[in-house]
């Protein structure tokens, strides 16, 4: 591990270039780490880090500026021209034109952060200022012709706080900028590169991007999720943009088991690469949890249908009502498949683990309940239903029960509201719609009368030390038992994948201790050759966007495997803290647009979509709030 020779990262300057004994300042510095490799010098939006005294800082700065100009959008004079001016001066210095315009560079580097339009422009020239300040001698040597400027190869990394928070690493500032400039079709193209279900994600995503949005420090985050929805809605309401066709046809056939988000994403990308793709789906509909988990008032059927149709029209074959009863690689090879991607999701509800839980029409699993409603089954409402659990499945069940006409709907959750894993908006709307939530209680016994249920006995809980999930462990308070009168109990405490189709031998070689499928992280390969896996069946119940990301990566990994090549993962920089910046955002205050929600009394009578999306004009207006917080890092 090379010792840091100079760092200005995050504004803290450590300069040990002249020290005879290198300062071992490793622990104090917010070091930028390059996984699996070391670097001699690095320049990023937040400063310079140098590990090697011989590093050519002039070349590094020039390489950084060449990359920076690619991201300088052109909508403001100072950033676009400022970068070009500094680069021009440096290129002429390097050509031996003996100009010493260091002052001109300093003026630009000082003034652009004050006057640029976006967060990128305000921060991009900061490290160039560091270079001029702390490595001035090097610049002067080159200007005076005493030293040659080398041309060299540098690696580059571009991200943004929102991009990094997104499990699919979608170019968020990019698609938002296209909306701002009324280029909805182009925005859709960009979104589809990483997210093939924008209408679904635009409604049901947990939006970690919005939590990371720098605009949280001002009026509130940019409505990134709703902007994606606006693009998808626009496509649905106007002329649908078909998916790009593969440029060449490959003869290899790939089998995908499960047409949920992971399966659909993999199928689309593999098809785009030219492979012949067949998806086997057990249910009559595609979409996985998006189809049979999320109720219509959150995700109307036609939205998902449109996005699946578009994938089928692109050439992906989906065989519905076709459950793969037994995964037999040899059989699949005989049928001509070169590889299999298993993406069966996690559709088996886990038991609560209390007495009286044996199956009956009145003691059901949340995921089964939702699936039945989503597939059109009629459910007779009862007087009272109690739902055990605090995640989105529990909330979806509760809000569905309200609409089905259950007179009283109560959620019982063992921790407090703060720890509830369900979406915050879902919890709020459930309460608005009349769902009662009882915190810090857990069931011990379901009181049965034959098939029927009369009550559920619970015990009060208190919160102790954090467990593996990081949340405080619930501990039963002895003797605090109480009964809740109820006619039905819905268990929504967790889901597991159904791995029975792997067979006993398959299960032992493919599954982890937790009942999920084991894979290698970068190749998504299971321990069995030609079998790849991704989505909830690998991670356990997670989010839609994480499943989409695994599908995207699976396609790349399968392609690499079939061509006998290594998966290109790209540079991994860590300890970066993308939200840190040295210049103020300087944003014009703009009111945040919030989505309109149907009034509660209108909602609960039916499954009409509760949240109304933005119109195209509203989306353009909201998109203008994006600060374009692109971060570049260049290194050697």
């Amino acid at each position, binding site marked *: 591990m090379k010792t840091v020779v100079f760092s200005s990262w995050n504004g803290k300057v450590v300069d040990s270039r002249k020290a005879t004994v290198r300062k071992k300042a490793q622990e104090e510095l917010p070091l930028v780490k390059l996984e699996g490799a070391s670097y001699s010098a690095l320049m990023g939006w937040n400063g310079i880090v140098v590990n090697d005294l011989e590093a050519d800082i002039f070349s590094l700065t020039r390489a950084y500026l060449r990359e920076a100009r690619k991201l300088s959008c*052109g909508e403001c004079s*100072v950033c676009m021209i400022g970068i070009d001016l500094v680069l021009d001066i440096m290129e002429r210095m390097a050509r031996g034109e003996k100009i010493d315009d260091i002052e001109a560079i300093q003026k630009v580097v000082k003034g652009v952060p*004050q*006057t640029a339009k976006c967060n990128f422009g305000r921060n991009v020239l900061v490290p160039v200022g560091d270079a001029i300040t702390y490595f001035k001698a090097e610049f002067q040597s080159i200007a005076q012709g005493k030293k040659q400027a080398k041309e060299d190869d540098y690696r580059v990394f*571009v991200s943004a706080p929102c991009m990094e928070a997104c499990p699919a690493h979608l170019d968020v500032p990019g698609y938002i*900028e296209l909306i701002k400039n009324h280029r909805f079709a182009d925005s859709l193209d960009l979104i589809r590169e990483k997210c093939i279900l924008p209408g679904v994600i635009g409604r049901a995503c947990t939006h970690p991007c919005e939590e990371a949005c720098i605009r949280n420090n001002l009026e509130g985050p940019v409505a990134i999720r709703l902007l994606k929805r606006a693009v998808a809605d626009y496509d649905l309401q106007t002329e649908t943009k078909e998916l790009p066709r593969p440029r060449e046809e490959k003869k290899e056939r790939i089998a995908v088991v499960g047409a949920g988000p992971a399966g659909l994403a993999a199928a689309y990308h593999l098809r785009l690469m030219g492979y012949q793709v067949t998806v086997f789906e057990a249910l009559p509909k595609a979409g996985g949890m998006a189809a049979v988990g999320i109720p219509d008032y959150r995700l109307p059927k036609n939205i998902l249908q449109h996005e699946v149709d578009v994938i089928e029209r692109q050439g992906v074959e989906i065989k519905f009502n076709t459950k793969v009863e037994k995964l037999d690689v040899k059989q699949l090879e005989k049928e001509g498949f070169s590889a299999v991607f298993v993406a069966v999701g996690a559709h088996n509800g886990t038991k609560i683990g209390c007495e009286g839980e044996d199956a009956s029409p009145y003691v059901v699993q949340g995921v089964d309940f939702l699936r039945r409603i989503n597939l059109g089954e009629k459910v007779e409402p009862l007087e009272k239903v109690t739902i055990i659990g605090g995640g989105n499945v529990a909330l979806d069940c509760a809000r569905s029960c309200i609409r089905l006409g259950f007179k009283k709907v109560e959620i019982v959750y063992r921790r407090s509201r703060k720890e509830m894993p369900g979406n915050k908006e879902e919890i709020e709307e459930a309460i608005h719609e009349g769902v009662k939530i009882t915190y810090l209680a857990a069931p011990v016994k379901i009181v049965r009368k034959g098939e029927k249920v009369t009550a559920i006995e619970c015990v009060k809980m208190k919160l102790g030390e954090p467990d593996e999930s990081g949340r405080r462990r619930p501990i039963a308070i002895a003797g605090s038992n109480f009964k809740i009168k109820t006619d039905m109990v819905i268990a929504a405490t967790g889901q597991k994948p159904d791995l029975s189709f792997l067979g006993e031998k398959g299960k032992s070689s493919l599954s982890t201790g937790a009942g999920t499928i084991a894979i290698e992280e970068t190749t998504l390969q299971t321990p069995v050759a030609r079998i790849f896996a991704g989505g909830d069946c690998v991670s356990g119940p997670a989010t839609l966007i994480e499943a989409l990301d695994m599908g995207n990566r699976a396609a790349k990994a399968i392609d690499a495997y079939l061509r006998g090549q290594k998966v290109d993962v790209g540079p991994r920089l860590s300890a970066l803290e993308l939200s840190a910046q040295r210049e103020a955002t300087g944003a*014009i205050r703009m009111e945040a647009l919030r989505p309109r929600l149907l009034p509660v009394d209108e909602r609960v009578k039916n499954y009409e979509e509760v949240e109304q999306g933005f119109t195209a004009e509203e989306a353009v207006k909201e998109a203008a709030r994006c600060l374009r917080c692109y971060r570049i890092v260049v290194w050697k």
Partner: protein
Amino acid sequence: MVEITIDGKKVQAREGESVLEVSRRLKKDIPSLCYHEEVSPFGACRLCMVEVKEGGKWQLVTSCQQVVEKGMEVRTDSDAIREGRRLAAELLYYKYPNVPAVREIAQKLGVAVKDEAIEANECILCGLCVRACREVVGAEALTFMDRGLGRENAEPEIGFNPDKCIGCGSCAYICPTGFVQMEAVDGKRIIWDKVFHMAKCKICNRYFAPIEQLEFISRKTGVPVERLMVCTSCR
């Protein structure tokens, strides 16, 4: 009405007005290149900088985009403002040294402007044509093509869609540098390299508007094209 303070004086501003609009109403001298009262602000030239007090500190903002808020404190002149405006002017002059509109503003803001070589009509990416075409005309033939991650264009540019252009010339009219040129030759109009056939007025027999423009107006208003074939002088 919204009360704000500009340069120490309390002023009544209209709801939704920009600081630039209020300031110019008060006859304050705020330079700009990419602003026009008929279209939305864009903040491209960075010349209209003023300072607004935010959290006790003066912050530079583009006055064209900053909407007035009750109690806002603004100043339109200070060292920081002059430096900011001058930097923007210098950079614009650096890139477009022979564009008259740029030379004029640069000189005014204290940039040392040399004698021009040959007058140039370059595009300074102010975006006025895009906004006029979209917001005033509604044809949507022009788009601001930003540079960005994975984008095809290595330089930012104005994108032109000939299928949507009706040849009205609003872009040429609003362009501050003369980059958008409109040629009239032989009953034809040429703009953005697209050739339009001009319609003749039924009464005076002079060419007065592109046929496509009249068809566009007809589609928008429902008035049949035949009724539009009279020039404004003869109406």
